C-alpha cells in the first residue's frame, strides 16, 4: 500500500480525481448547498415557524410514520422472499427473481397510476376490499401500499447475497449439537443476516421518505390526513413560496444525511461480519 503512495505506477490520478471532484461539486454539492444558503435568508424564528406549522408537522408524521411501517413490512416479507429464492427450488424461480427489481425499473408515475387503478373502488382488488370496509386508494393506506411497493427490492437484494454465502456446515454443526431448525434460525442464521437486514430496512426507509411519484396518485393528498412532505414542498413551489419550500427541504436533507451516514456504517458492519463468517 505505502509503496504505491511513494511512487505510483499507474497514470491519471490527478486528472481523474480532479475531474471527479469538479463534476461532483458542480452537479451535486454546490446545488445542494443552495438549499442551505437560501434558508439562511430566514431568521431562526421564521425558519422554526415554517417547519413547525401544524400542516407541515402532520406531513412529517405521515411521511416518516408510513415509511417506517412500509420498511418494516419489507423487512419481514423481504427476508422470507430472499430465503425462498436462495434455499428452495420451485418452477418460475428465475423469472420471479428477475422481477424483484421491477420497482427499481418501473417509472414511479407508472407505478402510481397502476396501484391506484388496482385499489380504486372499481379496480381488481378494490372491488373486493371496499365492500369489506377497507378503502385503500385515496387514503393513508394507499400511501402504505405505494411505499411498500417501491421499497420491496432493497431488503431482498441486501439479504440475498449474504444468505447465498452462508456455509451449510454452520447449520449442520448447529444441528449436530442438538439445535432444532427454529433454534438454528434464531441463534445462528438471523444474527449473521442482521446487519444486511438492517441495511435493507434503512435503504427502504430512506427511499420511502423522499418518494413522490408513486404516492401522489394513490394518496388523495388531503392536508393533515394524507399529504406527504415532498408534496408539500411542491405545493409551496407552485405558490411561489420558495423560502417555505426550501425550509422544509432543509429538514428533509438533514434527515437524509443522517440516514446516509447511518447506512454507510451499517454497510461497513455488514461487510465485516460477512468476512468473519
Amino acid at each position: 500500500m505505502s509503496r504505491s503512495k511513494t511512487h505510483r505506477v499507474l497514470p491519471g490520478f490527478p486528472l481523474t480525481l480532479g475531474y471527479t471532484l469538479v463534476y461532483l461539486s458542480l452537479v451535486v454539492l454546490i446545488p445542494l448547498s443552495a438549499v442551505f444558503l437560501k434558508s439562511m435568508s430566514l431568521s431562526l424564528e421564521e425558519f422554526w415557524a415554517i417547519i413547525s406549522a401544524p400542516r407541515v408537522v402532520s406531513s412529517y408524521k405521515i411521511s416518516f410514520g408510513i415509511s417506517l411501517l412500509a420498511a418494516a413490512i419489507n423487512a419481514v416479507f423481504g427476508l422470507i422472499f430472499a430465503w425462498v429464492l436462495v434455499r428452495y427450488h420451485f418452477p418460475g424461480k428465475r423469472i420471479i427473481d428477475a422481477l424483484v427489481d421491477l420497482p427499481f425499473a418501473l417509472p414511479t408515475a407508472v407505478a402510481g397510476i397502476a396501484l391506484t387503478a388496482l385499489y380504486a373502488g372499481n379496480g381488481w382488488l378494490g372491488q373486493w376490499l371496499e365492500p369489506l370496509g377497507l378503502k385503500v386508494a385515496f387514503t393513508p393506506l394507499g400511501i402504505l401500499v405505494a411505499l411498500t411497493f417501491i421499497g420491496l427490492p432493497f431488503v431482498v437484494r441486501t439479504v440475498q447475497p449474504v444468505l447465498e454465502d452462508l456455509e451449510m456446515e454452520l447449520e449442520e454443526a448447529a444441528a449436530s449439537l442438538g439445535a432444532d431448525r427454529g433454534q438454528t434460525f434464531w441463534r445462528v442464521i438471523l444474527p449473521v443476516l442482521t446487519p444486511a437486514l438492517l441495511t435493507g430496512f434503512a435503504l427502504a426507509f430512506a427511499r420511502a421518505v423522499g418518494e413522490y411519484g408513486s404516492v401522489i396518485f394513490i394518496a388523495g393528498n388531503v392536508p393533515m390526513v394524507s399529504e406527504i412532505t415532498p408534496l408539500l414542498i411542491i405545493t409551496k413551489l407552485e405558490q411561489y413560496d420558495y423560502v417555505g419550500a426550501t425550509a422544509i427541504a432543509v429538514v428533509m436533507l438533514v434527515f437524509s444525511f443522517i440516514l446516509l451516514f447511518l447506512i454507510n456504517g451499517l454497510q461497513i458492519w455488514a461487510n465485516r461480519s460477512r468476512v468473519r463468517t
Partner: protein
Amino acid sequence: MGAGVVSTWTIHARRFEANAATREPTWLKGVLITIALLFFGLFLLLPLATVFAEAFRKGWAVYFAALVEPDARSAMMLTLLVAAIAVPLNLVFGVTAAWAIAKFNFRGKQLLTTLIDLPFSVSPVIAGLIYVLIFGAQGWFGPWLIEHDVQIIFAVPGLVLATIFVTFPFVARELIPLMEAQGREEEEAAIVLGASGWKTFWYVTLPNIKWGLIYGVVLCNARAMGEFGAVSVVSGHIRGRTNTLPLHVEILYNEYQFAAAFAVASLLALLALLTLVLKSFVEWQGRRSMHHSQEASEVIS
C-alpha cells in the same frame, strides 16, 4: 455474489434441501413459498398486469392513437434526448471516479465514495428544487439568465440537469467495488511493459469491467427515462415542449384520459421489462466470466 452460472444457483438450493440437517419441514417450506408468491403477486405481478389491462381496455385503436398523437411523440423524443445527454455524462464520470477511487490510495476516499451516493438519498423533489433555486427567475443566476435570454428552468436544460442529478451514482457505484476487487496488478504490468495509460485502460481495464459498466448504464438509462419527481419540478409541464413521457402520463391521467395515460405508461413498463431482461443477461454474463477467470487462475496456480 454466489459463485457460478445458472446451474450452480439451483444446486445451492438443492444441497440445502437434500440435507436432513438443513432442511425445513415440508409444510413450513410450503407456507413460506406461498407467502412469497402471494407477496409477489400482490405487489409486483398485479400492478404490472394492470398497466397493460387498462391500456387495452378501449381497444387497439385507442391504444395506438394515444402513442402516435403529436404530444406523445414529442414526449418520446424529449425523453430520448434527455437520456442521450445525461447517461453518457454520468458514464464518463463513473469511469473516471472509479479509476481514481479504486486504483489509488488517498485520504478522504471513504468520504468521497459516500458523497457520490448522496443523490440516492435525496428526495427527487429536492433534486428539482435545487436547480430552481440556482437557475430559476428568483435564483442565483436568474436575473443574469433573463438578461441574456437563456432559459434553463421550465426548459430542456433544466430537465437534463435534474436527470443528471438523480442518475449521478449509478455507473460509479457499480464500477468502484468491481475495480477495487480486481486490484491493480494487471494494469501495473501493462504500464511496466510499456503500454500508455490510454492503451492500458482500453485493452486491460475495459474488458475486465465491461459487464459492470453495461449493468450500470442499463440502470442509469432506466432511471433517466423514467424519472418523474425531479423533472416534474423543473419542467413547467409545457405540452409538446417540456413534457417527458412520465410527465405526459401524469397530464393524461389528470385529464381523465385513463386509456391514453395507461397506453403511454405501458411503453414505460415495456422499457422497465426490457431493462430487467438486460440486467439478468448482464448478471449472467458477468457471473460466467467471473467463473471462467476463477477457473483459469485455479489452473495456473
